[in-house]
């Protein structure tokens, strides 16, 4: 059975607190993946538009670290998920206090009780305080599979990097209620960070007021700025703020990698054995920017795809962004005519394998994508009935009549269920 135990010094425990605060802004639950050489916290937000993976290096970050995955586990890892809130109540603030006042700890021991001969499976965290006080927490956890969003930095030609402290000053100007952030590489040697909210009215009632804050930064203020001129890319302000605030606690530089709108963007930073990577969906009019044609990217496309959910665009539902559907090649379009016309209106894209899509293509090798070997397709389908935890890319059944009908109709197109669930969520 899996053995996982490690020890943290107060400084490291305080960093765990900081990262949990950051992950808490993305998701209620945090998934844990422990491997022999590293320990990773991941979080996927509820709209599947942002994915965070924070890896702690086994040698650098921990005082001691031992992870022996169970024999049966296919790829040598221990995974589980827990409530962020529960972990945060253990990894409180002020764990690290140089003066050693109350609340400060001497060290922190974490182990997982996962043996069948013990009555309870628990994630055990032991905070050893200075004066002989020991606080032990036994948290329940849920066994889950952890998936990772893949991101191919070779494709992401647009890069910039800036010290998080400077970036933190800029985000303070963004309005608290704003939703979107447009990162624009101007042609006058400036980058513009514009936070805004689209005005939404319902009849005469104004539901959301437009509020725009634009922060223009000279590109010379960046440590590195290598972005195609005139490129707009739009992400969520809330995510960006959470990332910058956390990066600032590490006093490090924030690096951004992206290719073009509608393709994932990655923020990356880290120090002292902590590596943080956030893969975010982006939006924006990708036709507007004079981007290179997608063709050169095709060879590496398989690697650049994030997991299918990362590309979902929940904002399309709100109608805030007018985003053209991806261009569909004529060959694909012809296949759609087989579908009944009534369905076409509701889900024009669901049956269309889009060559530019990040979704899994039916004709591609799915096996590489699956985190574990799904030899038995039938079992796999029944595996997750809740469909609410992080890994939506698993094939799931829904108790919805329309969906099941869609499935039968799609049979001849042989699209993997992986694709459908995510698309259904995006369109309904």
């Amino acid at each position, binding site marked *: 059975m899996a053995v996982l135990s490690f020890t943290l010094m107060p400084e490291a425990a305080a960093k765990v607190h900081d990262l949990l605060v950051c992950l808490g802004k993305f998701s209620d639950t945090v998934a844990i993946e422990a491997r022999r050489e590293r320990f990773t916290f991941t979080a996927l937000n509820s709209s599947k538009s942002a994915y965070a993976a924070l890896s702690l290096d086994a040698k650098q970050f921990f005082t001691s670290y031992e992870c022996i995955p169970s024999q049966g586990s296919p790829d040598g890892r221990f995974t589980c998920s827990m*409530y962020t*809130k*529960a972990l945060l*109540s*253990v990894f409180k603030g002020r764990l690290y206090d140089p003066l050693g006042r*109350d*609340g400060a700890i001497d060290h922190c021991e974490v182990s997982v009780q996962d043996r069948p001969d013990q*009555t309870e499976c*628990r*994630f055990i965290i032991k905070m050893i305080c200075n*004066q*002989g*006080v*020991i*606080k*032990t*927490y*036994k*948290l*329940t956890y849920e066994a889950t599979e952890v998936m990772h969003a893949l991101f191919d930095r070779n494709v992401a030609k647009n890069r910039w990097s800036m010290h998080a402290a400077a970036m933190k000053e800029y985000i303070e100007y963004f309005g608290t209620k704003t939703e979107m952030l447009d990162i624009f590489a101007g042609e006058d040697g400036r980058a513009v960070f514009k936070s805004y909210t689209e005005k939404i009215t319902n009849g005469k009632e104004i539901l959301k007021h437009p509020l725009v804050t634009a922060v223009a930064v000279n590109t010379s203020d960046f440590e590195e700025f290598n972005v195609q001129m005139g490129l707009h890319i739009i992400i969520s302000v809330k995510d960006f703020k959470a990332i910058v605030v956390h990066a600032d606690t590490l006093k490090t530089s924030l690096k951004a990698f992206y290719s073009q709108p509608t393709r994932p963007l990655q923020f990356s930073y880290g120090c002292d054995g902590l590596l943080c990577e956030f893969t975010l969906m982006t939006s924006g009019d990708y036709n507007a920017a004079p981007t290179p044609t997608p063709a050169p990217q095709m060879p590496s496309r398989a690697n650049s795809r994030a997991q299918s959910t990362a590309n979902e665009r929940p904002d399309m539902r709100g109608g805030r962004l007018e985003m053209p559907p991806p261009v569909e090649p004529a060959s694909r379009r012809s296949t759609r005519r087989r579908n009944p016309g009534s369905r076409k209106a509701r889900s024009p894209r669901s049956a269309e394998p889009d060559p530019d899509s990040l979704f899994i293509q039916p004709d591609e090798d799915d096996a590489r994508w699956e985190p574990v070997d799904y030899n038995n397709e039938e079992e796999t389908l029944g595996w997750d009935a809740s469909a609410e935890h992080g890994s939506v890319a698993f094939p799931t059944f829904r108790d919805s009549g329309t969906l099941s009908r869609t499935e039968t109709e799609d049979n001849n197109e042989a699209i993997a269920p992986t694709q459908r669930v995510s698309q259904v969520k995006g369109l309904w």
Partner: protein
Amino acid sequence: MDDEDEHPVLTAVSNSARQLYHLLRCINFSDKAHVQISEEGLRFSVDEASVMEGSAFLDKSLFTSYTFRATPPQPRQHEDSDEEEEDEASSTPTFQISLPSLLETLQIFGLTDPNNSKPPWARDNSTSTAFSNNVLGMNNMCRISYDSIGAPLSIILTESTISTTCNLTTYEPDFADEIPFDRQSLAFKTIMRGSWLFDAISELASTSPESLSLYARMARGKPFFALSASGPLGSARVEFSQQQQPTPAPPPTNPNHPSAPDAQPNLLETFQLSDPTSTLRSTYKFALIQKAARAMSVATKVSIRSDTQGVLSLQFMIEVDAGAEGAKVSFVDFRFVPLVDEGEEGYEADETILGIEADHDEGTKDEI
């Protein structure tokens, strides 16, 4: 009762309403508080469903002047001799008042420290004489008086030239029985810093538990005290063990002596177990214990006692600032009725705790 009361039952003057407020705030978990007036001071007690009670004693030393006049003997002459009991009760008048109102009243001028602040509208003190209020320490006074049984409790607060009189309605006493706690047959007693207990309770609160379990035993000759709680998200336990003490605690055969006196402040100052060979375990409702949290946070020390029936007594020693005279000590008491032991489930948890504790002990032993 009905004749001229030129001699009120109680007149007490304090120069710091703040002190009284801080003490009474510790037991502010119920609407009504019983007030018992005696020669030694005022005793405020509150009660929750007869399973928890808290009381704060305002010693007469907290007041600059304290005059208690037992109820005049006239009632006895008026009434029949069979009212012996009432007479006895009336010698220490008891009544109920609304505790939240009293607390509101006491902080009517805010909670500024009288000794180092004056109201912003106060004039400059250049014209003060030897008899001015500031010099006499009279600019911030709280006068409590209770004229006779049935009369309102009147509180007069004075600050500079402003004085406020509040009359709080008194009610008939409601209960007389307090939770029995047998001081003679203690099962367990320990004294520790109040902030440790507060810290532990707030840690345990994060699991949103129903009940709180208390464990005490001698672990390899060393005192061991733990609080444990479990909720839907998991369980949490805070252990206090005397691991920094290099010399072992007194042998368990000598339980009625406190731990060896130590130069450095011990985590558990006193540790007594009536039966050191076994583990004491009792369970209390967490929500009730949490009501004592305010007292824990301000207390310097807390004495945790449990009698053989499992009734838990928490006695908090609270230092109130008494200006130049140095710190005075007041006590706030809580008593809790235990929950009935749930049997097997409890034993299982018990064993887990002991098993892990034993492992840990081994570890520390090796380190040492």
